[in-house]
């Protein structure tokens, strides 16, 4: 009795194959975005004008200033909506795709024992004054993250977690003493770019301390890192929000034992 819906829609095809897209409010290519910010200008028509000027500089054509409110005496807060003129070129985006297979703990273990013939030594820490250990613990501790066990669970990995607020010299010293294959570092505090500064300092120290062939792999993680910035930071790999232990284990196996395969 019920006929299959006779759906004969002449839908505009989505720009999946197109190389450029624009933001979508409620219509294809309408370009709509929402922006909010504060300006150090007392509330009033001048501040409103300043907000509109900024919106235009951001590329918002015909910005709608929908909210404007004083904060204290010297500042004003704004919400702006409007269409941006920009297009995003999907072809130009460099995606850090995982270039290695995702392994189970078992697979990772056998890869290490077969290819390396010894345990892989992993040294973890939060450096600088950062004391946010939950992220690195999520990767290292048996308890793990998102239902996955952490690296301590991998019997072919020897994991040393130095915890919070480890100084760069101390970490480099321990890397030497423990014969670390990889140093895993977490940075959560980003104010004044602390995370970037600390990682760059560590990368430089490791390079100063170790010859390139013996230098442990530098793996960096934290919620505000952009995985595309490894080279810039001098790290070997950068992990962002939502990383799971197996992402990291698979990478370590790939980077530290993969060479054996081809070499």
């Amino acid at each position, binding site marked *: *009795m*019920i006929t299959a*819906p*006779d*759906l004969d*829609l*002449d*839908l*505009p095809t989505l720009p999946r194959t197109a190389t450029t897209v624009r933001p*979508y*409010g*409620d*219509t*294809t290519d309408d370009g*709509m975005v*929402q922006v*909010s910010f504060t300006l150090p200008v007392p509330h009033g028509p001048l501040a409103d004008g300043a907000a509109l000027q900024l919106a235009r500089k951001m590329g918002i054509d015909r910005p*709608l*200033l*929908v*909210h*404007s*409110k004083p904060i204290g005496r010297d500042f004003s807060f704004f*919400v702006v*909506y409007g269409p941006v003129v920009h297009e995003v070129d999907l072809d130009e985006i460099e995606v850090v795709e995982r270039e290695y297979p995702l392994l189970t703990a078992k697979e990772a273990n056998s890869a290490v024992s077969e290819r390396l013939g010894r345990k892989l030594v992993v040294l973890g820490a939060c450096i600088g004054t950062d004391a946010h250990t939950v992220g690195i613990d999520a990767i290292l501790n048996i308890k793990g993250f998102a239902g996955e066990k952490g690296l301590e669970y991998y019997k072919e990995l020897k994991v040393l977690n130095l915890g919070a607020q480890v100084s760069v010299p101390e970490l480099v010293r321990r890397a030497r003493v423990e014969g670390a294959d990889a140093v895993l570092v977490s940075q959560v505090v980003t104010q004044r770019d602390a995370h970037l500064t600390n990682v760059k300092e560590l990368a430089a120290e490791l390079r100063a301390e170790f010859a390139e062939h013996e230098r442990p792999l530098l793996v960096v993680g934290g919620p505000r890192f952009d995985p595309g910035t490894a080279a810039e930071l001098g790290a070997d790999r950068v992990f962002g929000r939502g990383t799971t232990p197996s992402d990291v284990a698979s990478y370590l196996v790939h980077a530290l034992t993969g060479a054996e395969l081809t070499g």
Partner: protein
Amino acid sequence: MTTAVRTPGKLGLDPALVRRARELAARAGRPVVDLARSHTTVAVERATLRLAGLNGADPEGIPWANRLVDAVRDQVGLEHGVCLPVWEALRSGEYRDLTDLAARAATRTVPFRVPEGDAAVRSEAAARTAVGRGIARIDERRREREELVRRWGNPKGPWIYLIVATGDIHEDIRQAQAAAQGGADVIAVIRSTGQSLLDYVPDGATREGYAGTYATQENFRLMRAALDETSAELGRYVRLTNYASGLCMPEIAALAGLERLDMMLNDSMYGILFRDINPVRTFVDQRFSRQLHARAGIVINTGEDNYLTTADAVDAAHTVTASQLLNEYFAKEAGLADGQLGLGHAFEIDPAVPDSFRLELAHALLARELFPDAPLKWMPPTRHMTGDVFHGYLLNGFFNLAGALTEQSILLVGMMTEAVVTPFLSDRDLALRNIRYVLDAAGGLAEDFHPAPDGLIARRAGQVLGEAIDLLEDIRERGLLDAIAAGTFGGMRRTAEGGRGADGVVARAAGYRNPAIDLLETT
């Protein structure tokens, strides 16, 4: 609808007062029903023709139903209804079908007459057969819905209702499907500004509405099909809503039944107050459209929430209650069951009013307890939403909470951009996340919500009910039309003679025949 068992009587309303309120509403409404039963309108007649299968439009886009009714009216008037002259002509002339007749009538080459005696009996019978097919189709769509709901099930909590309003049916469809995937139970396609004042229903798929998409039979079909597809994929029946109100209320109701829409905005006074449509026209159209909804198993949504966009939500709270009682009376008179009464109300108190949230709870709970079996439609804040979208998002969360605490049935989910634009795709998604959080985290809090017996909430609810009774008292005395003219609802003054579409109202003659009404009233 909502499966939660309601603790009855958190407010301790006096049942005698509640009875009295209902009685007054019935007495105030009855003269208007008499008016509806003694008049017809061009829209009622067009709707009847549509039931008989007359759809499509001429090359200028004017529907054949309009062409035919206009032609009949020109020649013989509508006092006897359109059916007698139309089927008389069909029976006696060489017309392939209704469309053919309409096309020829449009060139004014068809001689119409009102048949009498035997001819009248035969014409009426022919009309009844034709119209009966339309009603049978509506019955079939209703069974179809029932089967799909059986197959896929109803939402567990309140129905989560979201609007799409792009003006383009194709964008609407993408967005409606995304919304359903995100958790919407009901999709409403908002209409283009201005459609309600068109005295015809546009034809075909449309992409050029302003702040809403034209309600057309084809748009209904496309969206229902798309939602069926998504429902199948989700294993959950997603409902579709549109608007009956406006100059074409009965026709749109017919189309909604034919295309298996599930709910319809249908208010006894909205057109009068907010579209300046003639009151008599509205009441006549409304009755017929509701008879159709009753038959189609469609849940109606009334529009009391709108009053609070032009009148103050505290001062005018009792007008909402009074109007709900009137809408209930009109709806039941037209054959709608309690389970089809999506009476409207809204969270529109100025948030700057002290204790605004508790006052909202008082109003919402009053509605809940006055209409325990009705699937109440609870509308989010609109008037006091601003461009501060962050704060708007919060306000919508408190609206959702009030809905959960007072066990409203249909929750219209508010958009943080209410004061800015018709909803963005992302606004809808965020809104779904908002209501999901509230229902999952605090959905059961009604268990712990017990207004203090003489506390602010109970006192306020009692006060509103009292004021509503006084108002209904007054309306019964002066007459509903007069009360409307005095600006009782939403602060809008509308006289019985004024408003658009008055010329489309015709007093029925003794020999008026409308097989649709007969079928709807008797079977």
